[in-house]
């Protein structure tokens, strides 16, 4: 019965996700076309040849015709070819390729952030107002308030320029270390603070006193009962975090020239690469929607009080 319930819930959520994706696609498509300019504005060509190119891609037709055609192609799994960034290449291929690279960096950053963040949060929470707590609080405050490009530049100056231990270029061995740290910095600090606050709240709960009164060791009390309870708010944050980390930070990828998906977020828009804008948006939204669903199910597994409906 429980499995059926969960399945029904998943089907319902997937349906809702499809609806919201449709809304996102529609909005993005029309907003994108409202922007002045077109994909070929930087081409050094005569007015006539530009008109020919535009007509070739069907961009001269009325907007709703273009919209219907895009939807039709999308239904067949065809997201079109890139107009500018990698001219003539399939958008699906570009996204798969660059997402693979973003993921290589992203997964490692995610693992780093989750482990380092939770461990730091526990250390701080369990040593409230003592030295480890003070240090972690200062470090995480800095980490949260510093923008990514500052972290990236500081890392670069110290580790690559001054000490020369790591290469600046992503493609050299060890080149992934700095992008990973840059990408993980904010979520690590955020998770540490979240875990700390959560642990502090949980440590005063009556059920921990019950566990102690039952003769459970301090280890069981803290690492089984307190930790599991304090991770509930952390799980909620993991969904959007995973999606944003996996698709790659724009800053981390540009600064360290990682050929990942993150770079395309901004460049596709500034270049008016219509098919890429649509492709990246659809991909990113689906990923967020999917991760949120995974998180909600995870949430239900950890906390039996949560009802899926």
């Amino acid at each position, binding site marked *: 019965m429980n499995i059926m319930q969960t399945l029904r819930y998943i089907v319902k959520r997937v349906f809702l996700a499809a609806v919201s994706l449709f809304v996102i696609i529609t909005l993005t498509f029309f907003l994108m076309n409202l922007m002045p300019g077109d994909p070929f504005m930087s081409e050094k060509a005569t007015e006539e040849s530009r008109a020919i190119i535009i007509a070739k891609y069907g961009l001269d037709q009325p907007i709703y015709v273009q919209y219907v055609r895009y939807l039709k192609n999308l239904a067949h799994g065809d997201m079109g070819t890139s107009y500018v960034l990698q001219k003539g290449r399939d958008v699906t291929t570009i996204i798969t390729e660059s997402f693979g690279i973003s993921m290589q960096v992203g997964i490692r950053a995610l693992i780093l952030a989750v482990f380092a963040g939770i461990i730091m949060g526990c250390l701080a929470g369990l040593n409230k107002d003592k030295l480890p707590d003070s240090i972690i609080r200062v470090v995480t405050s800095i980490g949260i308030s510093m923008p990514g490009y500052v972290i990236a530049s500081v890392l670069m100056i110290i580790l690559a320029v001054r000490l020369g231990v790591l290469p600046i270029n992503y493609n050299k061995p060890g080149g992934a270390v700095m992008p990973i740290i840059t990408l993980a910095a904010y979520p690590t600090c955020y998770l540490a603070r979240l875990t700390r606050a959560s642990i502090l709240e949980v440590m005063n709960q009556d*059920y921990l006193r*019950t566990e*102690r*009164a*039952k*003769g459970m060791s301090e280890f069981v009390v803290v690492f089984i*009962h307190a930790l599991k309870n304090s991770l509930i708010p952390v799980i909620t944050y993991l969904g959007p975090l995973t999606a944003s980390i996996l698709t790659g930070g724009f800053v981390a990828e540009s600064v360290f020239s990682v050929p990942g998906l993150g770079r395309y977020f901004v460049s596709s828009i500034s270049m008016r690469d219509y098919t890429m804008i649509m492709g990246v948006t659809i991909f990113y939204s689906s990923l967020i929607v999917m991760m949120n669903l995974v998180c909600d199910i995870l949430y239900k597994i950890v*906390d039996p*009080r949560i009802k899926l409906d």
Partner: protein
Amino acid sequence: MDDKSSPMLEVKNLAISFFNKSGEIQAVRDISYVLNKGEVLGIVGESGSGKSVSSHGILRLTPDNGKVKSGEIIFDGKDILKMNAKEVQNLRGNRISMIFQDPMTALDPLFTVEYQLNESLKKHTDLDTASRKKRMVELLELVGINQPERRLKQYPHELSGGMRQRVMIAMALSCDPDLLIADEPTTALDVTIQAQIIDLLKELKEKIGMAIIFITHDLGVVSDICDKIIVMYAGKIVEEGTSRQIFYHHVHPYTQGLLESIPDIETDSSVRLKPIKGNPPDMSCVKPGCAFAPRCSSAMQICLKQDPPLFELDETHAAACWKILKEAQKQS
């Protein structure tokens, strides 16, 4: 049961204080009492009288900002306060167990009843998985929970308050404790459920023969379950005696006040309850003299200057009130 001469639990001159930024709060000030095997002791007092703190102290469950300043807690010949962490853990939930005031928050919401019951059995007994399971079902039946097999699979939020308190009791009884400390076990429950839980504890006491320390602010609740009763006020024992002595031959004005504030079903509704006027003293600045004197209708000069000691009235009955001395002097 067997050896009545040596007490099972002896609390000697226990003093516990809490420390915060504004200073010291003397929660328990020098209390001593003795509990024999199979006896039921009621500790009565209003909020902040130190009744819970003193009993949590027995299992060393005083919160982090609290400190046992002096005293001994001798259980079975050994001072609990001198034990190391491991020895205390072996005692907790095994030979001395505890149930708490609010069953709604006393169980971990993320674990099944089975998991939480199993934990203590696994820790304190050598039973294998199958026998533990059998024991858990027995325990739930013992505390009057129907469909025990199903209940084991449930989470705390799927149970009612009364049911959760029964689970807590089952958990406390799992290793056949010698002593059960019940810290206001009925306060958070509905009146009808309260009666059920009291009846259950009474029944279990007969069946298992464990000693019970029953902490409550409601004298009415403990009247027929306790062998003896301690009345606490401002961290001290003001009167102790058998249940009979406290109810019918009490001498301390505070005990008198507590008894007068119990509603009685037989009295006319036009008769108003007599509350004790005033508030309990601030334990962060303890003044000389009897702590109850400012609220006491029969306070004398000496009451404001000097704290009365416990005067023994007979073998089992004692009270801390200067009135006793005055009356004794009058008689002689």
